[in-house]
């Protein structure tokens, strides 16, 4: 396989990977999606917006930065709803309301960061980093809950474990990329695209984890 072809595949991994994961959604073992629908929505957001970004980029139809910003905000909303949905059955109503308020506040902060950054400047490192931090916090809380009160016999048979692990790998792995990307683009670093290719590569394990998650059956609960 030629180097150019590999490079082309690498820069399109953020479209190919969610497409493959969505294919697994169609052939999932447990038909009922429940709260996992938010992961499907997240994948759809990635597929549609990343494809749109690539189309604009290839046909040179103007700036596409607003689509990255939309991706950032919509991903945060869908994943926050996913975590809230996971947490709802176990949380006391008062704590749940507090979490909803905290997420609402965070959403407004992300929106404000996007708004004040403008829509035609550059990739918004602050909003992406804040989203990455929030999602990683959600993942850590999920793991903490699973360690503290393990409710399923084998965690790797659980859909949510694969979804959360995929998200954790992606958002924690890309945190430094998100944090530095604005600086790299504003400094007109000629190698900035390599960093974004690495981002696309990290996107793959997340989609693989999602695909495994969709192939999981309903897990058996602890004794």
């Amino acid at each position, binding site marked *: 396989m030629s180097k150019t072809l590999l490079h082309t595949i690498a820069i399109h991994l953020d479209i190919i990977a969610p497409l493959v994961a969505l294919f697994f959604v169609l052939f999932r073992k447990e038909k009922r999606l429940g709260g996992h629908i938010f992961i499907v929505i997240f994948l759809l957001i990635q597929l549609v917006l990343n494809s749109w970004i690539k189309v604009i980029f290839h046909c040179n139809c103007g700036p596409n930065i607003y689509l990255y910003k939309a991706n950032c905000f919509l991903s945060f909303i869908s994943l926050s709803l996913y975590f809230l949905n996971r947490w709802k059955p176990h949380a006391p109503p008062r704590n749940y309301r507090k979490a909803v308020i905290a997420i609402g506040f965070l959403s407004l902060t992300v929106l404000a960061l996007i708004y004040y950054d403008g829509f035609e400047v550059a990739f918004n490192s602050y909003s992406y980093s804040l989203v990455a931090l929030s999602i990683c916090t959600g993942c850590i809380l999920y793991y903490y809950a699973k360690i503290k009160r393990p409710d399923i016999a*084998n965690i790797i048979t659980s859909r949510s474990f694969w979804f959360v692990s995929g998200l954790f790998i992606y958002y*924690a*792995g890309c945190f430094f990329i998100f944090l530095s990307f604005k600086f790299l683009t504003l400094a007109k*670093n000629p190698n*900035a695209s390599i*960093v974004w290719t690495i981002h696309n590569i990290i996107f793959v394990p997340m989609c693989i984890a999602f695909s495994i998650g969709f192939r999981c059956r309903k897990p058996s609960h602890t004794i």
Partner: protein
Amino acid sequence: MPQTLSHDIIAIILSTSFTVLIISFIIIFIVIYQKRHQGFIKEKADLQTGFQQILLESQLEIQEQTLQTISQEIHDNIGQVLSLAKLNLGTMDINQPHQLQQKMDDSKGLIGKAIQDLRDISKSLNTDYVSEMGLMQAISYELEMIRKSGAFTTTLKTEGLPVKLEAQKELIIFRMVQEVINNIIKHAKASTILVLLTYRPDTFSIAVNDNGTGFDLTPLNAGENSKFGLGIRNLHKRAQLIGAHFSIASTLGIGTTVTLQLPLSTNQASGS
């Protein structure tokens, strides 16, 4: 594509790789931890099931043993006493008033003894007598029944302030004592049985001693449990289940001492 990467890019790539590595370790750790935790929960549940099973077995064995003792008691003791009373009453001669009075008194005594023995037996017909009487009383009663047979001299001694153990543990301990006493009766060729209950603040121990022929412990210490049959293996298993230490000391020609040591929790130690 440029040939050399700037320091910034290298730093970003390195920190990203490092983060991915750390995250992977965290995820692997969680999977391993969760698996071990589940294994532990399963083991605990199995142990609990095993405990319940042993408890049920012990209850059934105690009932069986009780029925055997009652049957023996009725046949060898009460039956004999009542036959003697019947004989006395059947051989009464109205023409010999002095002998008549004597025989009536003897018969009254014999019937009284039969009534007392029946009362004793009726106690053991209650299936929960171990938990109702408590361990010490139940052992005392068991030894009394053996003593009555006339083949053994039995002694029960206690040291320290007696405490009430958990009912389930008492039942299992009692069954173990019964099993040890049965072994003495069957194999030890002993004439005396001594049971010593020792209550210390942190441990409870029970020692059953006999003056029988004793036996060679070498095969047992070498792990050849099969030579000693199910009895000793069961005793070990039951001791393990209640968290007690079980040991046997034996000297050929002198006798055997079987000891069970159970650590006491703070609650048990304080509540006598």
